[in-house]
């Protein structure tokens, strides 16, 4: 039975706190596409993204009782998904990060990013190593500060900054390559 329609955030929260299967399903139906997009940004592939999405929603349903209504429910769910993705790669020993304090200021071409579609940007981001990609997603898209990233990933703030610089450098190189191909083509 597919539940159509949107429920109020408070109604969903209370229903999920009471473990109401109907509202649990409604919550999933309401947020699964949004959260799957988050998972795709952090995952190497769609299979990993599905695993993260499944694990993330299970955590949401089990921890919904801890949601105190401070901030949006969607943001709370998104944070759980991000943490689930990080845990996923850390558990699989694929989340290796070199602690380098060297941070060079790398500037992205804003015009190029503006002209690119979301899928093109995601495609470029997903080509980066997991560590760079994670820091870039957390900082550039999720809006985390380096302090928050350092706490989340259990790294130093300097490492977070250097990882972000390297990520931006890789991304800018790819954007340049795309532009060059476009000019040549």
């Amino acid at each position, binding site marked *: 039975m597919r539940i159509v329609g949107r429920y109020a955030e408070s109604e969903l929260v209370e229903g999920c706190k009471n473990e109401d*299967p109907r509202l*649990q*399903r409604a919550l*999933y*139906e309401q947020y*699964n*596409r*949004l959260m*799957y*997009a988050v998972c*795709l*940004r952090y995952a190497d592939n769609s299979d990993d*993204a*599905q695993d993260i*999405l*499944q694990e993330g*929603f*299970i955590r949401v*349903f089990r921890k919904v009782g801890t949601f105190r209504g401070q901030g949006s429910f969607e943001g709370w769910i998104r944070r759980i998904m991000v943490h689930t993705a990080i845990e996923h790669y850390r558990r699989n020993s694929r989340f290796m990060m070199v602690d380098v304090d060297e941070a060079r200021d790398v*500037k*992205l071409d*804003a015009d190029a*990013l*503006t002209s690119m579609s*979301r899928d093109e*940007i995601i495609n470029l981001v997903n080509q980066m190593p997991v560590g760079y990609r994670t820091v870039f997603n957390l*900082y*550039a*898209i*999720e*809006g985390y500060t380096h302090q928050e990233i350092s706490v989340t990933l259990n790294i130093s703030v300097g490492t977070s900054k250097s990882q972000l610089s390297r990520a931006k450098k890789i991304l800018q190189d790819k954007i340049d390559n795309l532009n060059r191909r476009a000019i040549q083509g």
Partner: protein
Amino acid sequence: MENQNDIRGLLQEKFQHHEANPPRDIWAQIEADLNPPQKKKVVLWPYMAVAASALVLFGLWALLGGPQDTPNFPSNNGMAETTPAENVQPQPQEESIPSATEENSFAAQQEEEGDFRNDEIKPLYQQASTRNFAQQSTTAPVEQSAVQEENQETINSSAAIALNPISPINPTLYPDAPVHQLEDKLPNKVESNSSTAAEAATANTSRLQKVKDNKLDLNEFSLQNVVAFASNELSKIAGSPLDYEHQQGQNAERKRYEFELGDFKITRTSFKKTTNQ
């Protein structure tokens, strides 16, 4: 720095409402994880409780004496198993009370039957008092009419046990059978296991002597024998029982006699045929 903030804002705006469709089976997996199928537990404790209770009850039952014989008088339906009335041959009145010469045969029969009265049957007789049957018979209304009189009576005796609803005895089955010839029909017949033949004979002789002395102790006789004895006493009063059908269409005087033995009340209706001279 401003450029970096612009890029962050640009990317956040681009991905703020980014959506992608996950496979449809994700929810089924989530649901299965949230509600794992519970293994069906085999609940054994009810069976164990029942078995333990049965064991305890059996133990208590065995502790308190085990199986006990309980009086199981046959119901009225059970009378079908007894001798039909038609098959009972009326005995001559002289034989209704055993004579001294019959003591041996009576004792022998009692020996064969054994002393089957037990403590659980006795209460049926405990309220019965010894009655002087001879006195009863002398005071009974026996009319000697000048008219041709033929004592033709039919037996309408019945034994009503006042206290006990169990009324297995139908004296019409043995209207005039002598006491010593009656076979006790009590189902829970307890065989004698202690008395020797000589002791049994002595005991029976003593009982017969009490009967002759009109000091009948009902506790010493079985229910059937008591009823039969009372029936015989009535026969002395009202004459020999005859077929009731023989009285049909004839002018007969009906008299009703009652004979009480403690809780037992035996009635007999006598028809005295009268003819006009």
